[in-house]
């Protein structure tokens, strides 16, 4: 299968690989996918008091397109508000990386990972608010 240059670039030089402290109350974690499906994405975002994403890290078990999709979104997330992050659509990811039809699910997974991470940070924030 022919990968686009952008997929290859992210695959060869993935950005923001790693983990943040999952116990940090300002860190939201999204883990989506399943090993049996061939893709697991873990996305972590650190959000400051203004609701802006200061840092984003990922780890992905999956094909080149899945790795590239998650690497790309970590770049996109930094500096955005969690609302803006929540609005990122898989189609934008697929378009940016020129994913072939059989790889669209990778961009869907990346969108799901963002939503899961945002949901996690919101849950942490509201838990903190209740205390």
């Amino acid at each position: 299968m022919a990968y686009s240059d952008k997929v290859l670039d992210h695959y060869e030089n993935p950005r923001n690989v790693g983990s943040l402290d999952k116990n940090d109350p300002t860190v939201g974690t999204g883990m989506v996918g399943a090993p049996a499906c061939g893709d697991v994405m873990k996305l972590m975002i650190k959000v400051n008091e203004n609701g802006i994403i200061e840092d984003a890290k990922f780890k992905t078990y999956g094909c080149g397109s899945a790795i590239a999709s998650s690497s790309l979104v970590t770049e996109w997330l930094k500096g955005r508000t969690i609302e803006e992050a929540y609005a990122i659509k898989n189609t934008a990811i697929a378009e940016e990386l020129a994913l072939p039809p059989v790889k669209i699910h990778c961009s869907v997974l990346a969108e799901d990972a963002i939503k899961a991470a945002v949901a996690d940070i919101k849950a942490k924030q509201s838990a903190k608010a209740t205390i």
Partner: protein
Amino acid sequence: MERPPIYLDYSATTPVDIRVAEKMIPYLTEHYGNPASRSHPYGWTAEKAVENAREEVAKLVNADPREIVWTSGATESNNLAIKGAANFYASTKGKHIITIATEHKAVIDPVRELERQGFTATYLEPEPDGLVDLVKFKAAIQPDTVLASVMLVNNEIGVIQDIEAIGDICREAGVIFHVDAAQATGKVKIDLASLAVDLMSFSAHKTYGPKGVGALYVCRKPRIRIEAQMHGGGHERGMRSGTLATHQIVGMGEAFRIAREEMASENERIRMLRDRLLAGLQDIEETYVNGDLAHRIPHNLNISFNYVEGESLIMAIKGIAVSSGSACTSASLEPSYVLRALGRSDELAHSSIRFSIGRFTTEADVDYTIRLLKDKIEKLRELSPLWEMFKDGIDISKVQWAAH
């Protein structure tokens, strides 16, 4: 320009040995007759070459040349054997077929087609080591079993089935026994004079011969009959019509001659290379060899690398040409059905690599491969959330994954 990757995909296809190509070319240029032309020397020369090649193929497997029928490849041989024998004997023996779940698609799919035509089939699961349990095989035989088809060497995991014992079971039960030996020639000794095998498929391009030619062994004692699948000029004693591709047949003959003469020493060298590769790769944590190691051709090593996804692994090791599953099915994203039949999880099936070593593989190739794998697996595990969890002591199989 990048140098071409190191070829470790000999089970998908082998390069044509230069000695084979040199034999073939005169039959493309000066001796271009149609071997069925009986009225002039062009035809006679071609026919003689075809018969010489038939002898070479027969010699490698200790058969009579009259038992060898030319085909366009192992796929056609398998189709001809399975559909041809099942249809011929259905009315006398019955309409049940036994095969193994790990057979090549060129066996599975003709059996499926026969099922659509009213046959029934048992797809026997092999043991976790890939081998057929003889007791279970015997138990699968029914009064109306007409045919059993078991491959000699598996294309993905290289395990060698005990066709001697299976053949005896079949002979005793009156079941026609077909063996797909496409992956076996030149790798394991085959003595058809002593084996209770009725039909055996061969391919040239897996044994350093050309693509587009194969053969089917059709046993004469006892005499096995098959219904032709290709009708026409009545070539190959009516079993398979079609103009014979002389140069390709000559190539197969030469390839099988070389295999016969060099098999012993070549396998020894290849075994050393494979063991070197195995030792090197087993240094890597969490690797699993797929299939039995003892009953296996020396050319094959199939390993799963846990916590690494298969496709990204293939992408990472572009410096070598290998296969993740059978070449014939690797266009699909499904994990290998062969590994799943062994009970491997989808993840391990996904992350399997088939290394197949051959005539032109060197020690340097193997050492490069080990270094490459070590480096890339480390890099991918660095990226893998599953590896991180494993290192944290989390049992991945116990994690509740969101349905996706």
